[in-house]
Structure formats: C-alpha cells, structure tokens
C-alpha cells in the first residue's frame, strides 16, 4: 500500500510521457493523452486497490500546477492586449452574452434532465478553460472532477460542431469565428482558430482568457439566484 502511494506521481508522469508518444504515432481523440493517461492511472488504482484520496494527496503537486498555468495566461493576454483594446466593446459584449448563455443553459438543462444539484453547480464553469474552471468549481462548491469532464466534453463538442455553426450562421469575419471558437471550445478551439489565420487565433486566445474572467463575474453575480432556485 505504502509503495503504491509513493509511486503515484512518478507513475502519472510516466503514463503521460508514454501516452504522448502513442498519440504522436496514432493521432485521434481516443488516443489523446487527456484520455489515455487518466485511463491508465484509473487502471492502476483499480488493480492496486489504492484509494483515490491517497492518490490525489500524493499527486497534489500536479494539481497545484494548474494554478501556475492559470497565472501563465497573463502572457497571451498581454501579447494580444492591443487587439482587445481596439475592439473591446465587441469582444466584451459577445463574450458576456456567450458566457451568460453557457451558465443559464448549463444549469437549466442539467436540472431538466434530472442530473441533480451537484451536477448543476459543477456544470456552471464548463465553458471556461479547464485550469480556471477547476478552481472556480472548487470555489462555488462543485465537484472539480465532474467539471473537468464537462470541460473536456465541451471542448470536443465545440470543435465538432463549429464548422456547421459557421456555415449555418454565415459567420465570415475571422474575429467572430475566433471569438466563437474560444468561448465555445476553449483550448482545443484555439488550435482550430489558429488554422484560420492569426487574427482568428488571437481573437480566440482573447476569448479564452477574457471569457474566463467574464464568466467569473457572472458566476458570482448569479450564484445566489442559482442556489436559491436549486434549493
């Protein structure tokens, strides 16, 4: 038992390194390190009988690093600041609308299909980039792991649906396509937006960061009302 818990961190890093190598050879959704690594760790937990609480305690440094990643978002924000300063009304208005829709649609559909309150709270930060979403989920009393799964699914769903939405809604401007990708599909969307040029890419980067900040504002404004409604 003791031996397994000591191995938590090195094993996680090893699995991550291996799944990155596998992914390089076999690109695709199912072979992404975001799927393979946790699957391998879950496998080890199941075989060794190591409880999740012990694992997370020993691998907590990785979790702590999420905070450092969040801080690092200041770098792309600083780099793209001129674009934000020049178009701030458009960017803030469209992101404010998007994040508000995300919160309301998330909470109401979760309750509608009967997934329960905890899921409804955990779904709130879904359209925010994962490192920020996880700490936001913690702050509002959600289940961070559930939020992480919601975030991952959102990212994939967004990238999957984006081409259809661009066509149906006749989005032509790289700025609006970028904002849509960043708000809807965060980091994966950013990658796709950069494939459409630098302006779309920068807009999506801003959408990820500014969208996260705006969502935080919405969450704290709306949380009392949501809690009242759920209770």
């Amino acid at each position: 038992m003791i031996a397994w818990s000591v191995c938590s961190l090195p094993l996680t890093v090893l699995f991550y390194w291996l799944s990155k190598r596998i992914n390089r050879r076999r690109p695709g959704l199912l072979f992404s390190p975001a799927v393979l690594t946790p699957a391998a760790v879950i496998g080890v937990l199941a075989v060794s009988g190591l409880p999740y609480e012990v694992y997370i305690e020993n691998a907590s440094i990785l979790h702590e690093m999420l905070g450092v990643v969040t801080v690092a978002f200041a770098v792309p924000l600083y780099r793209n600041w001129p674009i934000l300063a020049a178009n701030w009304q458009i960017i803030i208005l469209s992101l404010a609308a998007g994040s508000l829709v995300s919160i309301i649609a998330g909470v109401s559909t979760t309750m509608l299909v009967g997934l329960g309150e905890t899921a409804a709270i955990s779904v709130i930060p879904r359209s925010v980039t994962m490192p920020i979403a996880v700490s936001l989920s913690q702050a509002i009393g959600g289940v961070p792991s559930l939020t992480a799964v919601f975030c991952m699914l959102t990212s994939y769903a967004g990238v999957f649906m984006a081409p259809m939405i661009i066509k149906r809604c006749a989005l032509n401007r790289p700025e609006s396509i970028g904002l849509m990708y960043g708000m809807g599909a965060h980091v994966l969307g950013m990658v796709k937006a950069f494939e459409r040029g630098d302006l779309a890419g920068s807009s999506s980067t801003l959408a990820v960061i500014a969208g996260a900040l705006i969502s935080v504002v919405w969450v704290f404004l709306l949380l009392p009302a949501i809690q009242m409604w759920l209770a």
Partner: protein
Amino acid sequence: MKKWLQAIPQMLLLLLFSWLGKTVAAVFHLHVPGSLIGMMLLFVALQAGWVRLTWVEAGAALLFGEMILFFVPTIVGIVQVPWLLGTKGLLVLLVVLSGTALVMVSTGVIAERLHRMREGKRRDCVERV
C-alpha cells in the same frame, strides 16, 4: 535540455505570482480563485514593465505545452462519479452538446452583427464627409 534550463526559473517566477494571488485572496477573504488574482497581478506587472515578457515567456510556453499532465489527477477523480458511465452519462452528453451549440451561436452571431454595425457606421461617416 536548454529549453528546460531557461523555463524552470521562469516557472518559479510564475509560481511566485500564483502564491501572491492566493495570499491576496486569503488575506482579503475573496471567493475568487487566487490563481486568477495571480494572473491579473502578473498582467499588471507586465503592462507596467516591472516584469519583462522575456522573463516569463518560455516558462508559460512550456506550461501550456504540458498542460494535460496537470489535469490528470482531476480527471482521475471521475472514479468518484460512477454514474457518469451509465445512461446518465448520455444525458451529460445531451447537456454539453446543446449548451455548447447555444454558446457558440450566441457568441459568434453577436460578434458578427456588432462588427457589421461598426463597419456600417464607419461607412456613414465617410459618406457624410
């Protein structure tokens, strides 16, 4: 190897800001995650010129490149939510797909309309001149 030698001290600087943000959040009893405050502090420091972009750039790039590693413990936490694998999991998919579509349509359409409106206004000004 050189990439790491350059990135590690930079990551320590980022770590310092993350710690600063957490301290600020704790001292002022803020409910906002401390890491977000750390991000705003670093952004202000960059804008003010107290921290140069070259001091943090490589560290940030390395962190973003290996971001998935840091999510692993959180994602492994789904073992605590076993219902996700049952029929309820399909409902989650429904929630995510419908919500994401709504978010993307509203963001994209509003941004597109506002851009068009601004360009229209600009044209008006030119015509008036």
